[in-house]
């Protein structure tokens, strides 16, 4: 009597399942690397996440802040288009297009971050 735990056929099934899982993981990770998404936070709360890499048309976001800020998202970029704060340093930050890019409006307590930085922190 054959007492083997696995027969050839069983090993083949497990092998195919493992290969399939590895392939799904690999393709999912590759997709994530290419994806570009940005998070808009007001006073520490995420108010919107925008998929920049798949944005068909321009998006205007006007969070409920004082002073007012206008955020514009387009394919592959997001930025403070206008702000009523005195120094407008947030607008001067320009277009955010790469992972880790960040713009902050201190008076409006609003932060835009492109997700996925590859360093622990940036000193400025």
């Amino acid at each position: 009597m054959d007492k083997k735990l696995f027969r050839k056929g069983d090993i083949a099934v497990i092998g195919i399942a493992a290969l399939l899982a590895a392939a799904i993981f690999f393709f999912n990770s590759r997709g994530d690397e290419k994806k570009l998404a940005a998070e808009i936070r007001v006073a520490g709360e995420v108010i919107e996440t925008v998929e920049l890499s798949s944005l068909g048309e321009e998006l205007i976001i006007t969070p409920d802040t004082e002073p007012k800020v206008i955020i514009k998202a387009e394919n592959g970029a997001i930025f403070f288009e206008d702000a009523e704060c005195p120094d407008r340093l947030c607008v001067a930050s320009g277009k955010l297009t790469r992972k880790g890019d960040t713009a902050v409006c201190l008076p409006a307590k609003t932060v835009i971050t492109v997700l996925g930085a590859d360093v622990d922190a940036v000193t400025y």
Partner: protein
Amino acid sequence: MKKKKSIIIAVSAASLLCLAIAVYSAILPKKTSVDFFSMNTYITVSAEGKDSPAACEEIQKLVNNLDSGVLSRQSEESEISAINSGGGKMSEGMRRYISDMLGIYEASEGAFDFALGSVSDLWGFGNEPHLPADAEIKAALKKSGAGKISINGDEIAANGAVIDFGAAGKGIALDEIKSLLNSMKIKNAVVSVGGSILLYGEKDFTVGIRNPEGNPGSYIMTVSTPAAFVSTSGSYEQNFEENGKIYHHILNPETGYPVQNELVSVTVVSDNGLASDALSTACFVLGAEKGMKFAEKYGCEVIFVDSDKKVTVSDGIKDSVKLTDNSYSFAE
């Protein structure tokens, strides 16, 4: 029958895998992040370890209390507001901060001057920046300077000078945060107080040095370091243009005007938060040559970036710095 057995084996293997993943996730150290606004800047905390949720909460409390109760000139209830408006007895913490800052003021021969509040107020940085009248700057400068401060035991008198923690407060906050983390079960943490960084834990960290021409999240080089404090002073922060000229916020204590030298930014790596913050300003004011010697005296590592996109790095971290933007190069 064979087919049925194969399915059972495949399902069992998948279940075991799921269980292994669940167990692995459960034993991984907890990670918690928080971001908030305080000290007139943006603060981010990322902590790993059993106490990470509590650490994030406690750090927020600590920073808010330190700002409104001790360091902020904008807060009427703060200790520094009381000192600036007549002096008096210092708390133990304040005595330590002032004593350390006076040490750096003296060692830098006044390049780091933390009592220029009256002068910086004229420039309106952080609010509505503008070029003040020359006579106003000269008058404010006359009554300013850390040299006017007198200390007798716990008593302090600013004697008309206005003490400002703008060039050391972030570092002080990071020192206090490090002490707090030491009392908690935290494996690793990264805290940024307006771009001044605390790297806490036993691993090696990678920090980006900001691109002077980019946004606060973009960088031109990285530095790898074990646990440390990293601070940067840059002329790209808080600047404005008037009459075709750009004015930045790092003031020359001798003139009351923004420092004019070859530098764009100075980054200091230290085992002390106050020192890393204050020395980044001092070294900016001193310039690359004198600044390098000064940082060495304090046992700090330093990175200078100049307007010709040349990077000068102190010997101790030379091998840990990697340029990531090819328009920048190391100075000969």
